[in-house]
């Protein structure tokens, strides 16, 4: 048996009622006579809780006062590495000259004799040029990677057009359902409330000028052209963009991406293309739905605030808002959808196989997607400033 060599430990004091065999006896250090110290109880990592410093100082003081004292460890019920280390340090990193111990203590103390080199961490880059350069490099790397991903995507799309059999229709439809159909309740609620608030504020201002009827113009134009697509894109970026990044990221962590690679299945064809196509398809629909609910909210607020008849609202709307605005909103949504899915996939594919990187990537993905959506929206506003107004 491998326990050979261990002497029987002195029997621990009989358990009091309710005590369990695993319980710690408190560690003790007592003077057993002139120049003799007795160490007893459980000198374990748990037994010594809250007492490390006190015992360390006590031992050091005892050694300093009486360097040739006798140390009796035979009363110990348990000693583990932490307890042994406290004794060892108190003794000044050597065993005292006169020591009584049990055979199993020898190996515990023996391991302290080998010098342990503590590794040094590489100093972190200080503030200044070096760190700025690193940031710039990382940013450039992102840009290069996104361009590469877009290029890969275009090549794969061209191949898919030539071989339509490879298109993952099932995957696309699942993504449309997840990003589109399942987003309807939340976008409806948010759209309705924003439309309601907006219309209420606008009506209040217009009333003072007696220009009540213009609420339809302002609301219709703002919602169909800008707010509907933007609101839908921001909600979907937070909802579906994060989910896509997390999904691809977890596939990296669990080596599923590697499994796809070795089977010769392209990540972009199987994972990225369906997401991009699905979101480019579903976001315009979600945006239309959001716009409709915003107008509904606006209509109700206008009625409550100014007594504007809903029938009149619906009748006037097509006359004052040009259809070009609707098309512009749709085109924007399509681009927003593709962009969100592309960024989500980009950040998902960059996840390193650890949990921290996964969290960072999801955050980055959502923040970048929302920021870029707003930037692209501004670009659209400038480019099409004379269309439909």
């Amino acid at each position, binding site marked *: 048996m491998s326990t050979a060599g261990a002497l029987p430990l002195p029997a621990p004091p009989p358990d009091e009622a309710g005590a*369990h065999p695993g319980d710690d006896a408190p560690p003790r250090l007592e003077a057993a006579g002139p120049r003799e110290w007795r160490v007893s109880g459980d000198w374990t*990592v748990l037994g010594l809780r809250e007492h490390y410093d006190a015992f360390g100082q006590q031992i050091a003081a005892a050694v300093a006062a009486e360097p040739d004292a006798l140390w009796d460890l035979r009363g110990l019920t348990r000693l583990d590495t*932490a307890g042994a280390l406290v004794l060892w340090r108190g003794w000044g990193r050597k065993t005292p000259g006169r020591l009584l111990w049990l055979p199993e203590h020898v190996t515990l103390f023996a391991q302290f004799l080998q010098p342990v080199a503590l590794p040094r961490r590489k100093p972190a880059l200080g503030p200044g040029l070096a760190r700025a350069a690193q940031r710039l490099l990382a940013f450039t790397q992102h840009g290069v990677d996104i361009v590469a991903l877009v290029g890969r995507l275009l090549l794969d799309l061209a191949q898919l057009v030539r071989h339509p059999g490879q298109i993952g229709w099932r995957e696309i439809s699942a993504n449309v359902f997840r990003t589109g159909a399942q987003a309807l309740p939340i976008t409806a609620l948010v759209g309705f409330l924003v439309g309601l608030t907006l219309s209420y504020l606008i009506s209040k201002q217009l009333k003072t000028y007696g220009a009540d009827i213009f609420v339809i113009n302002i609301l219709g134009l703002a919602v169909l052209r800008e707010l509907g697509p933007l609101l839908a894109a921001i909600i979907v970026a937070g909802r579906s963009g994060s989910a896509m990044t997390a999904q691809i990221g977890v596939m990296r962590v669990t080596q599923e991406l590697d499994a796809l690679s070795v089977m010769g299945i392209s990540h972009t064809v199987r994972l990225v293309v369906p997401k991009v196509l699905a979101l480019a398809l579903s976001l315009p629909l979600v945006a239309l739905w959001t716009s409709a609910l915003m107008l509904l909210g606006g209509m109700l607020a206008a009625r409550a605030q100014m007594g504007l008849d809903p029938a009149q609202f619906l009748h006037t709307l097509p006359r004052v808002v040009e259809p070009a605005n609707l098309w512009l909103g749709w085109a924007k949504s399509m681009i927003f959808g593709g962009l969100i899915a592309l960024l989500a996939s980009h950040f998902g594919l960059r996840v390193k196989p*650890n949990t921290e990187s996964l969290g960072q990537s999801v955050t980055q993905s959502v923040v970048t997607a929302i920021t870029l959506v707003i930037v692209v929206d501004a670009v659209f506003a400038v480019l099409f400033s004379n269309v439909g107004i």
Partner: protein
Amino acid sequence: MDAVIEVDNVTTAYAGHVIHRHLNLTVHRGEVMALIGGSGSGKTTLLRLLLGLEVPQAGTVKIFGHPLGRCAARDLERVRYRWGVLFQSGALFSALSVFDNIALPLRELGSVPPDLVKPLVMLKLAQVGLKPEDALKRPAELSGGMVKRVSLARALILDPQLLFLDEPTAGLDPDSSKQFVKLLRRLRQELGLTVVMVTHDVDTLFAVVDRVAVLADQHIVACGPLAEVARLPHPFVRNFFLGHVERCAEEDLRRFRLSLDDTSDDGGVPAVLRGEEAAH
């Protein structure tokens, strides 16, 4: 010998599917107990029961005399600081370095001075046979064998009295697995651990195990020393030890274990095998 683990009449079921029925098991202080059983026989569920991660439908699980499940937080704390667990895939925290992974249980105690944490972690790292410079690596940079070693170091950092090993040698090459087994033997001699392990590896069984519990037909069909269990007529046991029964005799086991201790750590051929090679 007092019991460290007592499983009394436990029944577990998932969605109407019974996994264990009236299962009893006792593990004594200081012994190494192996759990074997076919896949789907409920070994992992039993281990999760012992760890308190699952609560049985009926029956009790006691560790160090504390019932798990419906018990006070203080009771659970008493148990959790006294056991170490080596998960099958290591379960290292991928966001932390090796050093921080091993130091985590110590730091969670909140009372160990920081200047004591460092040497304790480095000692454990040396004890499981890793180099000091490995301390700064991330779990993603480690090989399979190193992950197991780091995970073992983390399990041992509080110097537990009870160690759970889930497939400790699965996924290791024969050489790493042999070294890991040697490491387990050495640690056991040094620390006097009680060990419960789930394993499929016959060599690991031969090298370290005192008693074997066979889980089949929803309960423990046999529990006893290797030599006794290997001669059982149960079909699972017969297939498991197929071709190994002769090695289970007491004398042969002792020789095999001695040969393991003889060889150096660099994975040399055990003395017994060397003798056989010479004979051929």
